[in-house]
């Protein structure tokens, strides 16, 4: 009798553990399903299930810093197939501030975006606004460029703002150093980022609805990166970002840090490479094992009249397009290319800001389309061919292929003839 009861009790306990585990995993606001893996490179195609919708990876995330994507309505963004875009904690924290946004039903409610949002922590502003900031163990002290007021952005404050924003993915506050900085500051920043990660994890009020990603630092130093990877991967976070790159460093160093990072990041969690958006960089870094990317480049360059195409870019404001009645890209299906010619856009740039919007829409379409094609080729098992075709289209001749890209691809078994 006692034996049966003991067995029964043991069975109950393991059942309880199983159902508890199940309950926890259902409660997790992020699930990554690996749909296909490239047998040649380190590339993967995944379904990233987030609270607002599924996201197909590899994915490019457009940047809507202040809760808006530079003149594009949320309907237009949705129609382009965008499943996730970015907002910025520093900017939105200043204007209009977390309290109002919370009142408006979070950033989703405030900008009326029904799909996913990722918020950056404000860390990057430490580099971009370095004249106005002071970094201590406590946090980053900023002097507001708008009213001169001083604000202290701590890990806790950053997460608190992001909790109010209600983004699906939140980034930890990291101690960011420019990739061109060397010396002990890099090591200090790496260790501090780990300590700040722990503080961010503790401060997260909504772990069942919002995913907190860690950001690997360590500059361009192999040992420091490795140390950071070892430490951070011990934390139970739903995803990892590779940070501190894409800031003007040599591309030869850049790709080596990317591939080192993906080598040491868990397979079953998404890898987000921050600040990367040039087409070549995207394709190469997918091959190196990255799943998610963001960059202001496509939307910013659009406002200067630069339209992205598979063979580079068109400077629409140039005289040569004044009488060119082709669309930006005859193969592109975006609303701009379906309706307007280069000549029209060329003329429009002289008089109306609508020109910028048309090119912005095209550039976002270009980026999303590129990633869609990348993903499709991974799923179909022909990613290596895709890369070769892509490079041939982008560069007039083999000797114009960027050296770093050739090396990086070679490191994952892709030879470009």
């Amino acid at each position: 009798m006692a034996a049966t009861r003991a067995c029964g009790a043991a069975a109950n306990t393991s059942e309880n553990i199983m159902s508890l585990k199940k309950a926890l995993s259902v409660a997790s606001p992020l699930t990554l399903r690996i749909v296909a893996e490239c047998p040649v490179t380190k590339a993967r195609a995944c379904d990233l299930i987030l609270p607002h919708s599924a996201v197909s990876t590899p994915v490019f995330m457009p940047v809507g810093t202040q809760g808006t994507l530079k003149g594009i309505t949320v309907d237009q963004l949705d129609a382009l197939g965008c499943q996730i875009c970015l907002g910025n904690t520093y900017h939105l924290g200043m204007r209009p501030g977390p309290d109002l946004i919370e009142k408006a039903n979070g950033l989703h409610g405030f900008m009326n975006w029904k799909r996913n949002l990722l918020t950056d922590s404000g860390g990057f502003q430490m580099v971009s606004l370095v004249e106005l900031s002071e970094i201590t163990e406590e946090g980053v002290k900023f002097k507001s460029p708008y009213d001169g007021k001083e604000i202290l952005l701590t890990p806790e404050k950053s997460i608190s703002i992001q909790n109010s924003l209600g983004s699906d993915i939140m980034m930890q506050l990291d101690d960011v150093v420019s990739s061109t900085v060397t010396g002990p500051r890099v090591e200090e920043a790496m260790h501090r980022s780990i300590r700040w990660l722990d503080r961010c994890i503790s401060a997260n009020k909504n772990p069942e609805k919002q995913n907190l990603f860690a950001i690997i630092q360590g500059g361009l130093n192999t040992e420091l990166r490795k140390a950071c990877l070892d430490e951070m991967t011990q934390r139970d976070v739903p995803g990892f970002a590779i940070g501190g790159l894409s800031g003007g460093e040599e591309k030869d160093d850049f790709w080596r840090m990317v591939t080192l990072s993906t080598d040491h990041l868990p397979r079953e969690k998404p890898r987000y490479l921050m600040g990367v958006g040039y087409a070549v960089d995207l394709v190469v870094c997918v091959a190196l094992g990255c799943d998610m990317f963001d960059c202001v480049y496509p939307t910013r360059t659009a406002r200067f009249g630069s339209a992205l195409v598979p063979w580079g870019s068109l400077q629409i404001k140039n005289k040569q397009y004044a009488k060119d009645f082709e669309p930006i890209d005859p193969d592109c299906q975006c609303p701009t290319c379906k309706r307007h010619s280069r000549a029209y856009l060329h003329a429009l740039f002289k008089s109306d800001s609508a020109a910028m919007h048309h090119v912005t829409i095209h550039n976002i379409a270009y980026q999303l389309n590129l990633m869609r094609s990348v993903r499709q080729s991974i799923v179909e098992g022909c990613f290596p061919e895709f890369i070769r075709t892509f490079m041939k289209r982008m560069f007039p001749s083999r000797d114009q292929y960027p050296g770093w890209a050739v090396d990086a691809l070679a490191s994952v078994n892709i030879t470009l003839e």
Partner: protein
Amino acid sequence: MADGETWQINTSRKRVRKSVDRSLAHLDECLLVHQKSQELEGVEVFGVVEGGDILEERVRSAKETAKRPVSGFCLDGLQTGSMAQALRTQLISAVTKELPEDKPRLLQGVGRPDEVLASVEAGVDLFEGFFPFQVTERGCALIFNFNISSNPELAELEPGEDQETAGDSQHNGDLNPDDQAQMTSFEINLKDKRYQGDLRPLVEGCGCYCCRNHQRAYLHHLLVTNELLAGVLLMIHNTAHYHAFFGALRDALAEDTLDLLKRRVLGQTERKD
């Protein structure tokens, strides 16, 4: 459309007379070319009525232009800011008296709702202008009420909070005819701090994209942060609102309720002193 010439207030009678004569001469030349041209077959020609602010010249221009085989008339030199509304109305009425009933009259450069109402009463059919665009450019949204389909008793109720605050720093009318960039009492300035936390749409019940999807607080944020989307959304709303006003105007004319509409629209500009 034939080409006319526009003149300043207080232009001498001699110069105004010349402009009327010149415009008629232009028109006759245009009509000749139009007759002979195969490409222009099917394209209509409008005559342009000039005359500055001189009643006799206006009447003369109207009479003479009406003798020509044009399909419609453009009333030129009467745009917002060129003269006081009362004078404009007087001139338009005098002109339209001389024009055939069955040909359209187009007025250029007039856009404010009160001016539109007065001009319609004086006989204008078509309006060309950019009032909604100007409103958008100054970061404002049209909110004036033109709804008279509800209970007429309710229509007499106190105006809503917005109507009291709308352009309350402004006085409409003829005080600053040249100051076209000034906000009117038909709009609200979304840059104003009071809209920072206002989670209502620009106009309750408006079916435009902006009002269906966004709130005043968001528009305020976009304007304060100099974001491009502000202009996009405001232009959508202002255009929709303005078009809906014209729809209400046509209905009111058809149902003979223009007085009611005037009271509804203009009642918002009266100071309740």
